[in-house]
């Protein structure tokens, strides 16, 4: 019997498969399709202090082996998430959840993280400083080491649970930003958020997405995500949650060989509502084929090659 469990800053997951924020809502839609307790955990919809409608539609465009989204942090706001979503979630999901928090100011990040930190059932806080779809909606924080460090420090000062900073790939030097977060006390790094991209409607001669640009996700970005996980693994000592185009159990192994301690599955959930469940189920068989007994043994394994 292979061992699929992994540990993130003291938090042990039965497997490394974590549906990514923004592709899994607050769990309810997927719980209608399968028992989501088979997952290692999941990262809930990026939550801000105020309720947000997000961007005007259209918010979605298709690309080769991927998609663009510019949802723009639509969410009910931290009050409703705490008063309505989390209680609903506790009924259907009995494992620690990853709380994904976004913001527009350092104070907002700190306030929301401090409040979510107190919530039962929250196992880890993922601080999204990399949303490409809202004006200074975090991405500005995630593209500069200094401000990334400031957010990290502010959040760490008011929280007790592991804090993972979710980084943007739209940068020249991802390692420098990861290092800045680690130095500022981050318990881990989560990457990549989406790559900024766009599509144009040839008939209308205008951007497909109302917001003009959107975030690219799906298998198309997997090689870029893998490269950045590799670079960050060489730059920091804290655990990494790797994501970006992961769609199969083999992708999970590849991400972990690059340095990820756990893996988030994003766009795949939108194309196949059972994607994350299937990955969890395929994992042991793929591990056996590759002669992997303990999944934790292969974290960063390709670096020693």
């Amino acid at each position, binding site marked *: 019997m292979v061992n699929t469990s992994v540990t993130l800053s003291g938090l042990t997951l039965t497997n490394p498969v974590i549906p990514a924020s*923004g*592709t*899994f*809502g607050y769990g309810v*839609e*997927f719980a*209608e*399709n399968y028992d989501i307790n088979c997952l290692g955990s999941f990262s809930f*919809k990026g939550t801000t202090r105020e309720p947000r*409608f*997000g961007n005007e*539609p*259209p*918010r*979605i*465009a*298709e*690309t*080769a*082996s*991927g*998609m663009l*989204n510019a*949802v723009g942090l*639509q969410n009910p706001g931290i009050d409703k998430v705490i008063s309505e979503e989390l209680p609903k979630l506790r009924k259907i999901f009995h494992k620690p959840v990853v709380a994904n928090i976004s913001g527009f100011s350092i104070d907002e990040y700190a306030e929301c993280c401090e409040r979510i930190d107190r919530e039962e059932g929250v196992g880890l806080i993922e601080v999204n400083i990399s949303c490409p779809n809202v004006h200074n909606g975090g991405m500005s924080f995630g593209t500069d080491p200094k401000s990334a460090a400031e957010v990290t420090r502010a959040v760490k000062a008011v929280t007790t649970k592991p804090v993972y900073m979710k980084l943007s790939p739209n940068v020249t030097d991802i390692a420098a930003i990861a290092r800045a977060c680690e130095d500022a006390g981050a318990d881990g790094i989560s990457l990549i958020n989406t790559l900024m991209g766009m599509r144009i409607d040839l008939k209308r001669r205008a951007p*497909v997405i109302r917001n003009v640009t959107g975030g690219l996700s*799906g*298998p198309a970005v997997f090689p870029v995500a893998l490269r950045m996980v590799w670079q960050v693994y060489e730059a920091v000592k804290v655990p990494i949650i790797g994501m970006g185009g992961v769609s199969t159990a083999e992708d999970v192994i590849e991400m972990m060989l690059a340095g990820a301690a756990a893996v988030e599955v994003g*766009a795949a*959930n*939108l*194309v*196949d*509502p*059972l994607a994350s469940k299937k990955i969890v189920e395929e994992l042991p068989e793929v591990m056996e084929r590759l002669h992997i007994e303990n999944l934790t043994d292969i974290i960063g394994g390709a670096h020693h090659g």
Partner: protein
Amino acid sequence: MFDGRFEIVSNRKIAKNTFEMVLSGDTEGIRPGQFVNLKLEGFYLRRPISVCDFAPGRLTLVYKVVGHGTACMAELAPGAVIDTLTGLGNGYDTAPSGDKPLLIGGGAGVPPLYALAKALLAEGKKPAVILGFNARDEVFYEEEFKSLGMEVYVTTADGSYGIKGFVTDAMDRPYTYFYACGPEPMLRAVYAKTVTSGQFSLEERMGCGFGACMGCTCKTKTGHKRVCKDGPVFMKEELPW
């Protein structure tokens, strides 16, 4: 939501850029006004298509070729199998229809009204339908609706067939309720003209089609709604038009 595999029985052109695809597969739980989401080889996102008609084991879709995805759909041959999510969306509520509901469809908005008409007739109601198109060569399903034994009014913008003008030019008749599906400008024109209550089916670019990605959210008087999950059918009273 159900995840099923459907096999193509037939796939034929029925009007300009308009095709009718009949599939065999498990149609359990499908309701009029819902849509299915098709995974096509070579495309990352699924293609949402409204349900035109269904029976146990048989599903009929009528779709318009508007891009590469639907163009590739039109190329598919009988025997091909499509990974299909069914039972998506809320569907129409037939309860408030009264005995003479008016169905109003424009172009690609016509198909879902067919399954609705059957359901209303099965409830012993006397629906009438207005089918709006741009021109004669785009007209489809007039006979299908007639053979259900209901009043059918066809309008064409260029007057090349039926009543010249838009669906709203054929609405001056008594009705107890309405169901409208079509492009937003048409829906807004209907909204402005209708005297009764009714239901609108909206369209929006979707990511997942089952409520997870928030890609198709719209604003309503009762809050932010996902067209794919909370819709695509909305009550006239909900819309902030």
